[in-house]
């Protein structure tokens, strides 16, 4: 019985890539069809490499740079101001739950608890959207950078010692603003995800 089986494409590709079996090597010596196919596969690789290269249609560096700066700022925010906010949040929670404390009334404490809870919900929504994993176009990246700056300023104000005792209604207002800014950030990222899915 003669050797009538030809090499499979898999075997010929392995041969082309320098990993051919002993059988394939021996078979190629005698089989013009397989030798021709091996040559064709080798030529195909050259033809693929010779296909024209696509060039980027527009300059994307400005949006990459804006997004990179925003991300760096966000890391700083979470690393420094974020810690201050977390500390302030803990302190304020304690104060809010305490019956007496500066000029705060029961209504202030209730409003503060509500504003903080809303802010926490919005912060979790933002976290769930994984904003760090997404590149944004220039306009969206600019809006995000501006919102994050506002958030940073609010968090810095909230971290001021004595803010709650001296002006509880202002602190409640700051937490409400914080919720608003976080909500706007959620909107930007949600819109971006929706557009990417179109």
């Amino acid at each position, binding site marked *: 019985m003669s050797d009538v089986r030809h090499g499979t494409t898999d075997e010929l590709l392995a041969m082309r890539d320098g990993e051919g079996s002993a059988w394939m090597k021996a078979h190629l010596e005698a089989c013009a069809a397989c030798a021709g196919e091996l040559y064709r596969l080798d030529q195909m690789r050259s033809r693929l490499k010779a296909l024209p290269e696509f060039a980027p249609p527009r300059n994307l*560096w400005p949006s990459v740079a804006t997004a*990179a700066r925003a991300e760096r700022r966000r890391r700083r925010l979470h690393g420094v101001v974020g810690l201050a906010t977390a500390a302030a949040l803990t302190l304020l929670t304690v104060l809010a739950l305490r019956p007496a404390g500066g000029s705060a009334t029961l209504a202030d404490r209730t409003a503060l608890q509500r504003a903080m809870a809303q802010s926490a919900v919005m912060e979790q929504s933002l976290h769930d959207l994984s904003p760090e994993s997404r590149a944004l176009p220039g306009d969206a990246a600019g809006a995000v950078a501006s919102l994050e700056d506002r958030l940073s300023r609010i968090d810095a104000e909230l971290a001021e010692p004595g803010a709650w005792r001296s002006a509880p209604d202002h602190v409640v207002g700051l937490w409400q603003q914080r919720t608003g800014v976080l909500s706007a950030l959620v909107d930007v990222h949600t819109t971006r995800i929706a557009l990417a899915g179109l």
Partner: protein
Amino acid sequence: MTETLPMAEARSLVARARAGDHAALEHLYRAHERGVYALARRLTPTAEDAEDVLQETFLEVCRSVGSWRGEGSLWGWIRTIAASKALMRYRREKLRAGEPLFDDAAESPGTDVPLRMDLESALARLPERSRAVVWLHDVEGYTHEEIAELMGMTTSFSKSQLARAHDRLRGWLGEGAMA
């Protein structure tokens, strides 16, 4: 695309970029944007997807530039980030659409293929993952082991996809089958 920056220049730019020098980051971007976009364009279905991969890749470069140790090829490092972002995008979209991660029958619809296609059209007709395997292996020179790692699949998956893709290309290009 091959290495575009001499090693000494690449090391110097990366050191500056690591220290927060945006001009150095921009230089790295300019040196590699074409290669990254060209690769992304072959691994993703649309020009818009390729633009997103280009942005995601350089955002990752900005984020992790410190992790390139200056030993291997800088282009190789950036290229692997780009390939990974492009393939991740494919996975994400398949999962979002509730489709299987690998759909071998996902070539362009219909069996009424013209008798002869040019290579560019035939390549575009391949299912996205098969095209990625062909491109990464035959053009970019990735091994099957590296492709398997990038795709989260096995080496034999990569080999069989390459063989099937070449069989399809041969048919579409009207180059006939072996006797």
